[in-house]
């Protein structure tokens, strides 16, 4: 065994895998997370951190170009796998390991061969494709020219000579232009897309935000990957539904950095998928609720307050009122109710209503994050139960074809 092989073998003990979830692929993604943990591998937080990509669910025509653009941003050696359903995860990960072990750094998977965005080690130029697709917003410094109205010409000499987009910046990326933020300070303004591939982010959601510094000054919601082709079957069992609810709540705990609470909730989630005893789940949730109110009160209180009557006006299915902590408690209580109902055969009538996100609901999310910094905005978004899969097969166009942003 040569030195290179030894290094490769050692590195293969901790492969970082970026998970790309197609709406409807949540159960596959959860299976992938569990499989990664069991192998000692990690979920990668960004393309630069990843050794491999794993698509959870068939990407479909909307997500496919995005997956390709992300893949070429991975440092080499890199590998790629696809899992249509939870049963295919293990094989896909084995294939990733084999591909990384072979050290075949030059070859791209067959479907990427014609990809026009590949430029050796350089990330792709910000053409229309990559601009759309850079899920974690890393290379998307597409400036918005905010001075069209000419009202702030006196603030910055940089703005004097350009009427439209300036493509003369470094690497062909337009320079950030200036605008006033909420406090009237002149800030660089950047147009950034949040999602659809971000850690702890609702699958299929894309927020086009205008960042002044790290403050969100404008926001527009869109969806991606909700087209009807290749849609995965929705989870049917009530245990799986409860597990998905637990999964989405755990994002908020992850973003808040509440490690123990998050781990406990993930154990409940996995227990629900593994036929764990209902009383055990209930007890874990009870302890979790206590733990959360103790440790997160200070950091989540008074964040992202939504007026009592706003959700009803917006047609939202759930009660979104209060601050992030209120919503967290309400969702945990709802989850406890779902879990308790699992033990009760009499409650087997019909599954609880799925959260069905509407255009108005997404606009309300946008309103709630405008004026917040990115960190607070991520917490507010995670505090709202955004499940876009409820739209699949019913009215996919209703969300994605919506027009107009907020503010």
């Amino acid at each position, binding site marked *: 065994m040569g030195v290179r092989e030894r*290094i490769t073998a050692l*590195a293969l003990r901790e492969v970082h895998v970026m998970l790309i979830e197609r709406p409807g692929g949540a159960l596959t993604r959860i299976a992938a997370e569990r499989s990664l943990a069991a192998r000692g591998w990690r979920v990668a937080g960004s393309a630069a951190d990843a050794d491999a990509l794993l698509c959870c669910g068939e990407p479909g025509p909307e997500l496919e170009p995005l997956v390709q653009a992300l893949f070429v941003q991975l440092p080499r050696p890199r590998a790629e796998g696809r899992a249509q359903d939870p049963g295919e995860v293990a094989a896909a990960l084995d294939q990733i390991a084999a591909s990384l072990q072979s050290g075949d750094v030059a070859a791209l998977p067959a479907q990427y061969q014609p990809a026009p965005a590949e430029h050796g080690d350089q990330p792709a130029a910000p053409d229309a494709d990559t601009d759309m697709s850079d899920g974690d917003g890393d290379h998307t410094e597409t400036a918005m020219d905010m001075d069209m109205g000419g009202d702030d010409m006196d603030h910055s000499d940089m703005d004097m000579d350009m009427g439209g987009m300036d493509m003369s910046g470094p690497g062909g990326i337009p320079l950030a232009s200036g605008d006033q933020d909420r406090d009237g300070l002149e800030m660089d303004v950047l147009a950034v897309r949040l999602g659809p591939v971000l850690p702890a982010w609702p699958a299929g959601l894309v927020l086009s935000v205008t960042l002044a510094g790290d403050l969100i000054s404008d926001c527009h919601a869109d969806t991606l990957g909700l087209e009807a082709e290749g849609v995965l079957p929705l989870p049917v069992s009530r245990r799986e539904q409860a597990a998905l609810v637990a999964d989405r709540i755990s994002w908020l705990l992850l973003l808040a950095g509440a490690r123990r609470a998050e781990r406990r909730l993930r154990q409940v989630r996995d227990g629900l998928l593994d036929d764990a005893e209902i009383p055990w789940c209930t007890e874990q949730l009870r302890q979790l609720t206590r733990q959360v109110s103790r440790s997160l009160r200070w950091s989540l209180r008074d964040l992202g307050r939504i007026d009592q009557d706003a959700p009803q006006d917006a047609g939202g299915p759930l009660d979104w009122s209060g601050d992030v902590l209120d919503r967290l408690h309400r969702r945990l209580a709802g989850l406890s109710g779902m879990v308790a109902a699992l033990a009760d055969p009499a409650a087997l009538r019909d599954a609880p209503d799925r959260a069905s996100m509407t255009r108005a609901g997404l606009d309300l999310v946008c309103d709630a994050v405008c004026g917040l910094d990115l960190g607070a905005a991520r917490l507010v978004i995670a505090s709202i139960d955004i499940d876009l899969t409820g739209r699949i097969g019913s009215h996919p166009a209703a969300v994605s074809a919506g027009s107009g942003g907020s503010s």
Partner: protein
Amino acid sequence: MTFPASLAAALALAVGFAVVAVVPAVLGARLEDPAPPGAGRWRRAGMAPWVRVARALGQRRAPTLAADRLLGAAAVVALPVVALLMVALLPLAGFRLADSAVGLVWFNALDVLVWALFWLIGWGPNSVYPLIGGYRFLAQAMSYELPLMFAITTPAVAAHSLRFADIVAAQHGLWFVVWMPVAFVVFCLGVVGFSLLPPLNHPAGVDIAGGVGGELTGLARLSVSAGRYLLLTAGSATAATMFLGGGAGPLLPAAVWLVVKTLAVACALVAVRTVVPTIRADRFVEVGWLVLIPATLLQLLLVSVLVGMGVLP
């Protein structure tokens, strides 16, 4: 010392220091392991530092578009170097690489240099999230640095000296942590802050895809993550020197005591993450300016009065 002897001593110090820093890194890897109990997590954590080195060695760079390579790379390389320089003036059981009458000021200067390094690491890739992480770090640093400065002033006042050896000698009989617990806690908080450990890891947060170092690949990523643990260990060694009596202790040699105390502080600081959730930079500003600064000033006042009354030596 002659020049070759000094060089050998410096190398020995650097290697020994890096070996010590592996312990908190292993503990950190164990606490970050998402696997359920009974999956060999400790064994895996023990291998984690070596696995990460191998991963970094086998990975090619993936630079971002129009990155500021010079400044970014300089900061990435400088981070572990700053950590090594921090321990250069500590009295290590009779063995001392260099001595200075202003050792405390040296430490302070280096920990302010960390501001520039993390900001440059965020600036380098020309990418949104790392830059946001860099600015978050500046906000965080604004909040821990002033309390940290008052905290390190306190032992200096008690020892009538800025020299580490004098501070250790002044603790003969009673460790300073007993007289100045607030200063000790605030100092430790500062160490957590400049090594970006949870709960003060908001600048490297998961919400901004890894933040300040999120775009780093290969050896650059390794250098920053190793640098963070080296900074933690350097800060812990300084805390042990200033507040826990340095190498003082029964039976065992002084060097062993210093390592034991350093590791105790470092591991405790790594383990804080299990209890306290991430503190966002904007919340931490409130804590720093409204709570920590008054608390450290009161501590300094108390110690000064005690010294003035002759209660403290």
